C-alpha cells in the first residue's frame, strides 16, 4: 500500500482579519509533512465546506479570533455532517473558553487550540486523529 500525506483545508470565517495565527499553523503543518489548502480571509462556512468537499480534505481547520467561534464552528460542523463530511475532523483555534470548548465537543467539533499552544502539538493531534479515524466509504 502506498503512503501519502494528510490534506488539511484552513480558512478564516467571518470578517476578522487577524490571519497570522492561521498562517503560522498552516506553515507548521507543511513542516510536519501535510498538504495544506489555505483559503485565507473572509470565508463563509459554506465556502469552507465547499472547498473541503472538492479538495477531499482529511481535516478542516478554522481560525476564529472575533469571538464568534460558537456560531462558526457550529455552522461549519452542521454543513460538514449534512454534506457527507461527518467522518472528517473539524479543528481550529482562537480564544476559546473551556466551557465553549465543551459545548462544541458535544457537537462533534474536535480539539481547539489557543495562545501558547505549540504548533507541533496541533500537527500531532491532527495526525493521530486522522490515523485513528479512517473514512467511512459508502457501500
Amino acid at each position, binding site marked *: *500500500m*502506498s*503512503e*501519502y*500525506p*494528510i*490534506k488539511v483545508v484552513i480558512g478564516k470565517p467571518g470578517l476578522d482579519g487577524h490571519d497570522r495565527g492561521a498562517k503560522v499553523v*498552516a*506553515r507548521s*503543518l*507543511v*513542516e*510536519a*509533512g*501535510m*498538504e*495544506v*489548502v*489555505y*483559503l*485565507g480571509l473572509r470565508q463563509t462556512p*459554506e*465556502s469552507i465546506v*465547499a*472547498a473541503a*468537499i*472538492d*479538495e*477531499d480534505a*482529511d481535516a478542516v481547520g478554522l481560525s476564529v479570533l472575533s469571538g464568534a467561534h460558537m456560531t462558526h464552528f457550529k455552522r461549519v460542523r452542521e454543513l460538514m455532517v449534512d*454534506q*457527507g*463530511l461527518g467522518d472528517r475532523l473539524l479543528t481550529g483555534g482562537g480564544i476559546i473558553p473551556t466551557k465553549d470548548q465543551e459545548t462544541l465537543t458535544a457537537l462533534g467539533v474536535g480539539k481547539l487550540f489557543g495562545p501558547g499552544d505549540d504548533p507541533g502539538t496541533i*500537527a500531532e493531534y491532527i*495526525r493521530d486523529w*486522522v*490515523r485513528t479515524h*479512517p*473514512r467511512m*466509504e*459508502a*457501500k
Partner: protein
Amino acid sequence: MAQFQKTSALSHGIDLTPALWKSFLAGQRQACARLITKVENEPDSIAEVREKLAGRIGKAVRIGLTGPPGVGKSTLSSAIALGLANRDHRVGVIAVDPSSPFTGGAFMGDRIRMENLVGDSRIYMRSLASREGHGGLSPATPHVADVIEAFGMDRILIETVGVGQAELDVLDCTDMVVLILQPSTGDAIQSLKAGIIEIADIIVVNKSDLPGTDTVLQSLRFVYSLGGSNRRPAPPIIATSCQQNEGIDKLVDEIEGAAATLIESGRHEELRRRRIVNEIRSGIQRRLWERYIAESDVERTIERVARDLVQNGESPYAFVRDACSRIELKSRPKEA
C-alpha cells in the same frame, strides 16, 4: 528525507465501491473528490479507475497555463474558468503547487485567488501538490484530468507551479499551452528564447495595468520576429489585467478559437493519440519494473552493485544488460 515524509503519511486505501461509482456517475462532487484522491494517492489503482472511465474521456480540451511565479496564473485561471463557464462550458481547474522536497508537505494558496469559483456547479477546482513531479506538475495530473473529464467537464485548465525556463511537463498533458508573463520582465524574455517560450500557443502579458507593458510586448514581438527552428507560427500575444477586467474576454475568445481549430484540424485527436502512446509506454515500463523488482532481494542486489560500482568506478550498464536478459528469458513462452 523519507523519515520526514512518513511523519504525516497515511495508508488507508479507498475502496472503489459500487456506491462510490454510482454517486460519481450521478454527478456527486464528493465522489469525484474521492476518485481524484484515489488516483493521486494510489498509483496502483490507476489502471482500474481508467478502465471504469473508458468511454467518458477524450473529448475535452485540456489547456495548460504556465509562467514564472507571481505573474497572476491563479487569478487569471479563475477569470478564464468563469469566462469559459459563461460560454456554456463545464470547466475543470487543476492547480499545482510545489511540495517541499524535505518534508513532503505543501502550502497550496491558489484558492485565495479563485474565490469566485467556489459554489459554482459548472466548475470543479482541485489543488494538487507537485509531490515527486519536477517538471511543473504532479505525476498524477493527467489521471486527475481524466477523472474530472469523466465527471462531465469539457474544458480542463491545468495550472503549473511557477516555472523557470524548462519545466515542460505541461506540454505532454495538454492540447494547448498559455504562457503567462508580466511587465518588467523584458530582459528575462531575451533569455527565454528557447524552452518554455517555444511551447506557447498563446502568450499573455498579465497585469497590463502596470508600467512596462509596452516594453514587454515589444520584446516578445521581437523574439518571435526572429523566427527560428520552431515549425509553429508565432502565437497571438494578448495583454490582460485581472484587476481592471481588461483583455480577459479577448483571451477567452482566443482560447476558444484555438480549441475550435484544434478539433476541426484533427490535431486534438492526434495529441490525444500521442498521450495514449505515452500512457501505454509508461504503463509497460511500470509493469515490467514492478515485475523485476518483485523478485526477492533484487532491491538489495541493486544497492550492493551500486556500492561496488562506486568503489571500482565501472559503468552500471553491464548490470542493466544482465537484468534485461533475465527479464527477456522469463517472458519467453515455455517450450513444450
